[in-house]
């Protein structure tokens, strides 16, 4: 393995292509207004990093206020209930849209997806750049809602009307929520454009030999998520439009007759809308959105477990099928958010069954992961550890899903902290672990350097302990009856005060754990900065990976060469107990004495 010029030329190649496209060497043009997919991917990741930092600080403020409401924050004064709800809303919106959707789907999607299918660029580079800037504008609009009279909206990321439709329903429900609407509409448009781009890239731009069966599972996840994005975000856009009309054009799609908010009779007379319509449209988007956030993590975990176990991903074809199946079933299950929302009870039963059905492909994935690593002597890199963490969190968070999918149990658990625990484990924490895994794994492609493994391990152990310490006890406070969205648990009158006070000791523990979890992330930030500053240069294919993004000459394909693919990913030849990686791009004719390595099925 001679010293490959690949990595040093990589940035040069990127620069060159940007220069060629931008026409000038101004660094702003190169890095900010670039149409190069890697540069755009990096921009997405910076945007997500900024959002996750803000979102985490907001969540810590929420925990602080929830457990010690009498505390006065420096520079702020007392936290009012509406401030707490604004924190909830912006935390949810930031994390779900600007972190869990952009980072795995658009960030790593841009950085890695074209390389993984052997394409030189995305199908529509310009549209790619535009969609980034639309999403960046969405972030700016969202954050600007803090600075308008009334402050940020207080109706949560789900923005149920009439609370979100009537300006008098609370502070922040005036200009604040208008900005929120604008932000989400922009985000929907940007995401749809970016998804179309990815879908076309995968369908049309695969290199020679890259058949559907040979696509890495990450790519399968990305295109399934893209498909869901196209379907779901359009419906969200329609829902937002109707809400906008209700707010400003005196219609009443979501407002019933005789709705009296804050003493003012609204929609008097002749209109009869229903808030349930919003719930239907929103969750038709909202549930696929959850899969958009988590599918890339599932794909990546599969690939990383295979890579570091030096094995073919167990039941590869089934993994592809289950990815698609989760995508399709994901369209069918939105009603499980509405079991107690006033739906026909028969609809509850129907949605319950479709929801339970989705547990089966999810379970298939877990089984496949377990079988892939089973007694395989894996190498414990940080990326692998985070993938293991993903599996663990996915199991723990996922298993409470079937409980919540049973309407009779949801009748007790709906909107309690049990639900908060469930979706934070399976979506937020598993999603973040997937992102960390991706970061540690692909950092050599991001910055030509390798993140420090020792710090990475500390980061992993801290994060895993922190995640479980924070979110496992939430199941218990939820079972004890603690509802979501409560600004405080103390000094509440009536029997409710006693009920909530009982959860307080556990909640204090959760807050401490949350601070520990957030503090651990400082290790990651330190690792990131240290590595960017003076980290070790990475070797061309430091993980002995088999997928195309590690092709040593890929970056030079700008100048003419495209790889050819000969086999599925994660193929290995076993000799004397050693596993040799057979990258997808190596011609079988060039392999020295490889008796049983040909074909897609691997070694049998």
């Amino acid at each position: 393995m001679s010293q490959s010029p690949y990595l040093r030329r990589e940035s040069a190649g990127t620069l060159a292509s940007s220069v060629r496209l931008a026409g000038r060497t101004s660094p702003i043009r190169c890095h900010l207004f670039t149409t190069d997919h890697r540069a755009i991917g990096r921009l997405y990741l910076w945007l997500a990093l900024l959002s996750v930092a803000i979102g985490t600080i907001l969540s810590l403020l929420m925990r602080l206020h929830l457990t010690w409401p009498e505390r006065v924050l420096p520079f702020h004064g007392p936290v009012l209930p509406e401030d707490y709800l604004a924190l909830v809303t912006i935390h949810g919106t930031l994390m779900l849209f600007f972190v869990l959707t952009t980072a795995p789907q658009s960030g790593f999607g841009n950085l890695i997806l074209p390389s993984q299918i052997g394409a030189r660029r995305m199908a529509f580079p310009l549209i790619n750049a535009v969609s980034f800037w639309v999403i960046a504008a969405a972030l700016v609009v969202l954050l600007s809602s803090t600075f308008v009279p009334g402050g940020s909206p207080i109706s949560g990321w789900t923005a149920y009307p009439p609370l979100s439709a009537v300006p008098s329903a609370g502070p922040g429900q005036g200009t604040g929520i208008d900005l929120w609407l604008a932000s989400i509409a922009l985000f929907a448009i940007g995401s749809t454009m970016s998804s179309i781009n990815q879908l076309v890239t995968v369908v049309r731009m695969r290199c020679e030999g890259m058949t559907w069966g040979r696509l890495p599972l990450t790519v399968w996840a990305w295109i399934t998520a893209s498909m869901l994005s196209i379907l779901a975000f359009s419906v969200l856009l329609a829902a937002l439009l109707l809400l906008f009309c209700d707010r400003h054009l005196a219609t009443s799609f979501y407002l019933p007759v005789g709705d009296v908010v804050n003493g003012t009779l609204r929609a008097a007379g002749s209109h009869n809308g229903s808030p349930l319509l919003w719930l239907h449209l929103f969750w038709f988007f909202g549930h696929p959105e959850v899969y958009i956030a988590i599918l890339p993590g599932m794909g990546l975990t599969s690939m990383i477990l295979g890579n570091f176990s030096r094995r073919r991903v167990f039941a590869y074809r089934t993994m592809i099928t289950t990815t698609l199946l989760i995508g399709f079933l994901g369209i069918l299950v939105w009603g499980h958010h509405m079991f107690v929302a006033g739906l026909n009870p028969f609809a509850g039963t129907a949605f319950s069954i479709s929801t339970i059905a989705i547990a089966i492909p999810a379970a298939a994935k877990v089984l496949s992961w377990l079988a892939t690593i089973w007694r395989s002597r894996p190498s414990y890199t940080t990326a692998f550890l985070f993938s293991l963490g993903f599996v663990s969190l996915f199991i723990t968070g996922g298993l409470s899903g079937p409980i919540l999918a049973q309407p009779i149990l949801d009748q007790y658990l709906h909107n309690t902290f049990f639900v908060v625990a469930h979706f934070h484990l399976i979506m937020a924490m598993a999603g973040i672990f997937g992102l960390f895994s991706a970061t540690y794994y692909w950092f050599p492609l991001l910055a030509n350097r390798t993140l420090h493994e020792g710090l990475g391990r500390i980061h992993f152990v801290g994060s895993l302990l922190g995640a479980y310490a924070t979110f496992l006890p939430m199941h218990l406070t939820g079972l004890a009856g603690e509802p979501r969205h409560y600004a405080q648990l103390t000094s509440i009158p009536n029997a409710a005060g006693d009920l909530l006070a009982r959860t307080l000791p556990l909640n204090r523990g959760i807050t401490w754990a949350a601070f520990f979890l957030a503090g651990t992330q400082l290790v990651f930030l330190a690792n990131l900065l240290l590595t960017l500053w003076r980290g070790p240069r990475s070797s061309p294919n430091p993980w002995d990976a088999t997928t195309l993004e590690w092709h040593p000459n890929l970056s030079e394909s700008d100048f003419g060469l495209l790889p050819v693919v000969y086999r599925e990913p994660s193929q290995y030849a076993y000799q004397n107990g050693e596993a040799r990686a057979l990258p997808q791009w190596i011609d079988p004719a060039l392999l020295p004495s490889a008796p049983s390595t040909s074909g897609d099925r691997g070694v049998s």
Partner: protein
Amino acid sequence: MHRSLDLLLSALFNARDIWRLPVDGSLHGALLDRHLLLNLWIILGLAALAHLLLLAGVLFARDRRAGTESISRTVRLEYLPLAFFTLLFSWLTLRAERLWALSRYTGAEPTALQVEVTGMQFAWYFRYPGQDATFGRVEPALLDPGAGNPLGIDPADSHGKDDLVSSELVLPAGREVDLRLRALDVIHGFAVPEMRVKQNAVPGQTIHLHFTPTRPGTYAILCTQLCGLGHYRMNANLRVLSASDFEHWLHVRESRGTT
């Protein structure tokens, strides 16, 4: 078989302290709790098993090559467990649906006590129909909390004259109650953890919810759907009284109302 399962489950009832469930004060709560605890133990077991497999798989090394797949291995490791999960989840869903149908598919008994529950930012109001057993007409335009008419009962309707409006829900133990949930402004969530019920009150809709409180005591009624800045303190008391105490309470309230 079923008997022994019941025995096991009842043993696990004492585990309520582990799971921190509040006491159950309703008739249907016992079955719900049992199903919930069954679920919780199953997922705890599955989670533990999966993590054991994960750890064992990582810690006990073997030949890497042994991990390659064959058809029999795929069936054994993937499809057999999947078939098991399908059966398990179907069984749980079936049990759950039976309970769901029991509580939601049919309305309350004709003899059930009628109470109307109205949610508004940020309070619950409870209305009893009074002697004539009929709720008076309400009109949004007549809403006037300052004048003691928070629900907008139409004074022109004779049915409304004897309606009792209370800020706490008082129920007799052992009698089914049929709640009619309404919301004036935004969506509210009517939840009584100790009664194991929860149902959103949606403006523009009247939604029925019925259950039977069995255990006298004072319980919390919460709002579980984000309804604005006062959401966290939108609550009320549910007082479950013995039948005679309830009759007494109703009598006192009614005589106070007419005088």
